[in-house]
């Protein structure tokens, strides 16, 4: 395949030098010719940008203006490809979202791969292609990276670490300690989609309707929220592992306040809700990968909610809870039938019930 300026990944197939090795061998992580072939024929064409093209030991970037936000996350999801995305999308969006909800504009990412000997290069190419697509969608550049290969049986095919750099405007103040009684909690859309999508394929559960991960970059939505709410926005979070419930607990603890959740207001897709009921799981504690929770002063809540709903990733946004001075560090749900209950913090993973 001749090298072209813009590789067409839709019709991509393994470039010539890689074809000799359809699967990852130890040498791909050895720093020799095989390693550089992987970089030259797979990573560079996908992530193409000036900083990366130098192939230095470090990416050298232009000066940034504002406070610098730095975040890192490691991705070990199984299966690597799932309804609505892949580990590649997650690796980019996960770090982009961590930066975004910190009020930063994400700019650059690094990508570290731990590959298992025998992992198909075609799968790696697909993952890399999806990382590139997510990076383009989020407007960030992947500027440096690393690949290591571990022996067969010592990894799960592919692990990815990404770190990200973003810039936070000087005037912006955000953080859980700013959250106070009276604040309103908004969520940008339906919860528990990602966790149930993963479970539906990982556990071989066959649900009648497909449940799709919500994996998406939140940088644009976060910018709109800050635009609409200004300093009335006290904190933002992307509730991933542990779900919205874990996020609410985190904020309740940090702010030493209580949170009252209106159960009837929680947006949950019917198929996701049904799957959760079937397995005895609480959607509040199931993972998301493209949702944000916003803690905002009551008088700005309507404006922020309207801004969220005007965005394609916030169309199902809802006002779901309020922060109160009572019962500090505790979540209480107002149930559909009008009673109250404590929402317990989870100890480990939720376990499906027997019957």
């Amino acid at each position: 395949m001749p090298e072209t300026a813009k590789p067409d990944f839709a019709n991509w197939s393994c470039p010539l030098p890689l074809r000799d090795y359809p699967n990852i061998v130890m040498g791909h992580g050895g720093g020799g010719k095989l390693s550089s072939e992987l970089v030259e024929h797979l990573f560079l064409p996908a992530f193409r940008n000036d900083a990366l093209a130098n192939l230095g030991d470090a990416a050298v970037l232009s000066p940034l203006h504002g406070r610098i936000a730095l975040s890192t996350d490691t991705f070990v999801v199984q299966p690597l490809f799932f309804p609505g995305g892949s580990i590649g999308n997650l690796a980019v969006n996960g770090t982009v979202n961590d930066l975004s909800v910190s009020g930063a504009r994400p700019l650059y990412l690094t990508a570290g791969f731990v590959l298992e000997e025998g992992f198909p290069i075609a799968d790696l190419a697909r993952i890399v292609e999806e990382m590139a697509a997510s990076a383009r969608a989020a407007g960030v550049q992947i500027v440096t990276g690393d690949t290591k290969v571990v022996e067969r049986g010592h990894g799960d095919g592919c692990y990815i670490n990404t770190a990200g750099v973003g810039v936070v405007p000087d005037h912006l103040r955000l953080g859980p300690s700013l959250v106070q009684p009276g604040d309103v909690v908004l969520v940008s859309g339906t919860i528990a989609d990602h966790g149930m999508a993963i479970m539906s394929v990982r556990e071989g559960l066959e649900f009648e309707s497909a449940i799709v991960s919500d994996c998406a970059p939140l940088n644009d939505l976060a910018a709109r929220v800050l635009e609409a709410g200004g300093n009335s926005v006290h904190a933002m979070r992307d509730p991933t592992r542990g779900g919205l419930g874990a996020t609410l607990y985190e904020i309740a603890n940090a702010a030493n306040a209580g949170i009252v959740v209106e159960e009837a207001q929680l947006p949950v897709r019917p198929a996701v809700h049904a799957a959760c009921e079937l397995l005895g799981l609480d959607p509040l504690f199931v993972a998301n990968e493209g949702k944000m929770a916003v803690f905002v002063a009551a008088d700005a809540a309507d404006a922020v909610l309207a801004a969220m709903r005007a965005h394609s990733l916030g169309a199902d946004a809802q006002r779901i809870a309020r922060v109160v001075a009572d019962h500090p560090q505790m979540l209480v749900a107002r149930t559909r039938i009008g009673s109250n209950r404590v929402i317990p913090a989870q100890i480990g993973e939720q376990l499906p019930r027997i019957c």
Partner: protein
Amino acid sequence: MKYLTEFRDGEVASRMAKEIRQIVTRPWCIMEVCGGQTHSIIRNGIDQLLPEGVEMVHGPGCPVCVTPLEVIDRALAIAAQPEVILCSFGDMLRVPGTDKDLFQVKSAGADVRIVYSPLDAVKIAIKNPEKEVVFFGVGFETTAPPNAMALHIARQQGVRNFSMLVSHVLVPPAIEAIMQSESNRVQAFLAAGHVCSVMGYWQYPPIAEKYRVPIVVSGFEPLDIMEGLRRTLLQLERGEHRVDNAYERIVTFDGNRTAQQLLAEVFEVCDRPWRGIGVIPASGWRLNAAYHDFDAERRFAVTDIHAVESPLCHSGEVLRGALKPNQCPAFGKQCTPRHPLGATMVSSEGACAAYYNYGRYIAVEELTHA
């Protein structure tokens, strides 16, 4: 999936609560037998909507809670054997044995897998012919049919490396044991709807008659439970003691005959120890002679099991309805969902865990500062 909304309607619930308040003229003590109902009552705060004096007592219908410690220790010992893949439903993994739980055995290298159906365990056995696959088969009449089906298929297909550690228990003998107990306060029962979906409710009229106790078959959604309570309280106030079916959309008098035939093919009735309660005569199922080859207890001659219950744990009294979870001296102190002393604190259906997790916040607030 209308049941998720229709049977949780707030307006209907408050109408029903009002109706119940109008029926009740004096205190009553009602036991919901099934752990799933306990979970729903506490999670939805149904007890808060009941008139003062109507007391819900939580029954022994949580399979995780009543499985004897000795059986759990046996499962742990079998799981620890190198050739074994132990398959279990998720919430059995956290149940503590005498020294450890299945999670700890797993992290020490045992192959322990969560499955959603015992049929998946049979599939795992077919895929791993060099391994011994054991399914931990606990539960009431509800979980027994899929277990029986798994055994039926394994026998039919000659899956010789599959076996089951069986500790099934039955509801009607438990109800009788509660009524015979000297300290009994229970005046009526909500019978477990899903058990009855399998078994029907033909077993209950003689019990209602013998002990002069109303038994109302009830579902699990908030409105199902409230309807069950409404019908129960009507009987109590009128001095009646009938078997009534408030879960008509699922339960018939005869139950699922096909399932019952399959159960008869695989199991036979036996005396069974209930954790925290003791041996109840003819209260369980074990594999019958035709299925002895699939009995994990026979296949793995595990000896050296010395089950020791925590002396602080009062789960037996909780399961009999003699003690409320929060009346146990260890509740929320030495015993929490994180460090459970007894099984009632482990399963989300266990009365202690349900109390700890979903209790009204004032009570829980006191606990967190204790």
